[in-house]
């Protein structure tokens, strides 16, 4: 069944001009994009490729030079669409003189959320992002990771249908980064649509259903992550408990069938997995040095 379109851009173009109207940068060239309800869409691209420009055009922070962007069926410059949108900016642009509760209260008021509901949501969100211990501290005392978390909380204060995240994991330590990614997946499971842009490819790969790759303002690639990444002429076999002889035999079988063996070896885990494993074990047994975590992780994970 065709799902509801949440974001649609038609021929969306942005040219930055100087004061005299002279063209300076062609930031986005005729972008045509459709994002459907309930998916996590990743916008990828190197610095200056137009990711953030696209996001800002979708939010109405910039006006398109030509073309149109429709968000939740309304023009991107229409403020009423913001009722159903949450936005986490690239860096956490929040008022540094407010504390966490005041921050969420202020943004909650901008949505005209009734007082009782607002209080409830603030308490819930501070819990979700794990800032209960620092909720009365002014944001200027926050670390970058804490600021990201409160930034995410403010993006969720209105229980939005569409969430736009600009570099959501930048500046986060691996644990927070994993928490963030888990939260993104959870939000998707709750039926929300998420658009994120990032240049941390691993993160995008971890969470996104579909990605678009931008380069110099043009959309170069668009599709499902699993389809895009699938290497159609390759086969991967992973097995445990094989002897040298058994491996040799398998090689011969491959050769016999005309296949070409690319590599055989002991797989390694990702550094992220190792790190998380070490931290989790340290938390479970404080004071003890964690040994052999990598081997265990590699074996047990089996990826």
């Amino acid at each position, binding site marked *: 069944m065709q799902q509801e379109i949440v974001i649609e851009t038609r021929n969306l173009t942005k040219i930055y001009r100087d004061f005299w109207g002279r063209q300076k940068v062609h930031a986005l060239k005729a972008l045509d994009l459709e994002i459907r309800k309930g998916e996590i869409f990743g916008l990828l691209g190197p610095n200056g490729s137009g990711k953030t420009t696209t996001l*800002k055009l979708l939010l109405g922070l910039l006006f398109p030079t030509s073309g149109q962007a429709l968000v939740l069926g309304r023009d991107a410059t229409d403020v009423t669409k913001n009722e159903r949108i949450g*936005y986490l900016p690239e860096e956490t*642009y929040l008022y540094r003189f407010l504390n966490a509760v005041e921050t969420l209260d202020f943004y909650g008021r*901008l949505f005209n959320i009734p007082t009782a509901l607002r209080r409830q949501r603030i308490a819930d969100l501070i819990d979700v992002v794990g800032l209960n211990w620092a909720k009365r501290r002014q944001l200027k005392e926050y670390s970058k990771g804490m600021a990201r978390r409160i930034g995410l909380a403010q993006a969720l204060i209105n229980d939005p249908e569409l969430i736009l995240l600009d570099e959501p994991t930048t500046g986060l330590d691996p644990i927070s980064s994993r928490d963030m990614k888990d939260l993104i997946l959870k939000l998707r499971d709750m039926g929300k649509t998420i658009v994120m842009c990032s240049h941390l490819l691993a993160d995008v790969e971890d969470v996104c259903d579909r990605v678009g790759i931008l380069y110099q303002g043009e959309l170069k690639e668009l599709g499902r992550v699993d389809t895009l990444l699938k290497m159609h002429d390759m086969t991967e076999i992973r097995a445990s408990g094989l002897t040298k002889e058994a491996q040799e035999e398998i090689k011969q079988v491959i050769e016999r069938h005309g296949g070409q063996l690319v590599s055989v070896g002991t797989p390694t885990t990702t550094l992220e997995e190792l790190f998380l494993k070490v931290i989790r074990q340290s938390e479970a047994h404080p004071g003890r040095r964690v040994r052999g975590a990598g081997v265990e992780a590699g074996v047990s994970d089996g990826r």
Partner: protein
Amino acid sequence: MVVENPVPPFSSWIGLASLTWLLVVLGVALAGLLLGFLIALLRHGPARAVRLTGRAIAGAVEDLVRMSPRRVWALASLAFREAVRRKVLVGFLVFVVILLFASWFLDPDSDEPARLYMSFVLTASSYPLLLLVLLLSVFSIPADIRSRTLHTVVTKPVRPSEIVLGRMLGFTLLGTALLAVMAIISYVFVVRGLAHTHSLAAENLRPVTQVHLAPGAAQPMVGETDKVHGHKHTVRIDSAGNARVEPKRRHWHEIFVEQTAGGTKYRIGPEQGSLRARVPIYGKLSFRDREGFDAKEGISVGYEWTYRSYIQGGSPAAAIWTFERLRPEMFRDHVPVELNLEVFRTHKGNMERQVLGSLGVRNPDTGLFVSVTNFQSNEFLSDEERAIQPLSIPLLMVRKKVAGIDVIQRKSKTPEGGVALSPNDPHRLKEAQDLRSQLKEEDAVDLFRDVVTRDGRMEIWVQCVEPGQYFGAAQADLYLPAPDASFMLNFLVKGYLGIWLQMLLVIGFGVMFSTFLSGPVAMIATIGALVGGLFKPFMVKLATGEQIGGGPIEALIRLVQQQNLVSELAPTLGAEVAQSLDVVYRVGLRGMAAVLPSFGDFSYANFVADGFNIGANTLLVHGVEALAYFVPVFVAGYLFMKMREVAR
């Protein structure tokens, strides 16, 4: 007190003012719309330009009408909190520090300490406050845009109108709170700074000599108190034993005489009368020239400052104040008159000697004129002189006590060259003539029956008696004092309301400019708009051609050719081109003068310091005027904010 720009009555002002306002606002709005349409036309072609313009109008109306008070309040309290947490209260500390050390510099020995103290505290509270709100309002939105905190706000369902109004409201609240505290501190400072008393020892009194004493009467005494705050008071004790402290430096004291075993003791009470809020009833001033014809103005004696107009002594020339709506219940047994004329002498003689003048009242309908009294005036009239010999018009003027009763017809020249007389009704004239001739020595003229008309009109005539000397008069120079209003209310509320209105304008213009200019530029623009407003009367004079010397190009020609301002330029082609270019400049200047607020008018420091009540009419007119600026400035700020790409 000098009142250069009297505030017109609200009822007669509001009609023309609102029409002008409407025209200016519509003109500016249409010009803006046309400009926007032309730009859209060039960029997108006619069909889309029409559509875009229509959408812009509809969007603007929606944004302004559908503002959410809760969101505005959230943004306002954020602005308030931001200002407080960014320690702007330092500005307030500056004020406190100024006051702490003020007593080092404020001279309590000055002739008018109350004036000095009050004008000082009003200035000391207005400048730091206005500077503070100026800085807050011009730097706030640009700082939010630079730090991109605004991105997080505008991606919420917040309309640009709410952002602009929220700022304006937040800073107004902060300024109001600061101003209220400043007002209370200032009040305490003034009251405490002026409070003093004197003491009088019985041995400092000496008998008044050359007085013929009635049998059994006590000896009148005179003496001086000790010197406090740089002055002494003369104390007089009359033959009935009543003691009186004579006024000095705009105040007086009560004195209590106590008989004790050790002799008579005198106790002098706290100072009174320096903190007043006089309520003047002003009349409308017109003149009579030396031939006895009505004139709009008197003679110019050559001063650049044309505030006062002069009447020649020893001639029929007179300054005539016409009062309206006078009622008997407003006065008890006399109509007090306060007068402060300027004297211009063509021959000096004895400078100490005052110039003699006469004061009369006239019925404008019948022409009955009663010459009430003579008075003396110097270049200025000191308080002591006024207090000792106050001018007043008795409600019943006994025939033999007044200098003369007459019937005077006022003469004016008609445009046809003839002479018009007023009153011209023979019946009315006869009525006055009859009254005049019937009055016997003991009979009295009843002011409200014979001189004041049924609808409460009366003329007060001031003439200079001495030939060769001149009196200078302006409308505010003569008034009838009504009972004083509350000084506390006048100082604390009304005086500071003027600063509050100024603050409102600063915030309005500051926030409006900051929606499309960077902080420092917005600051200069705001200061420019408000300082430009101070020169509004001059701009209007230049624009209407009332100012001699022409526009800037004509003035430049005169400057280069070393010509005076009065003579006509030689009718060359160059001169004509210059004058036509100046016409364009004048139209522009007229437009600018119409848009700029007359910022200085909102300061009531003179009223409060001179001890005059600020009338409800003044507050009403200025309140409406400030609002009339605030609303379009807010709308303009909203439009600039709306057109702005926040993320650029």
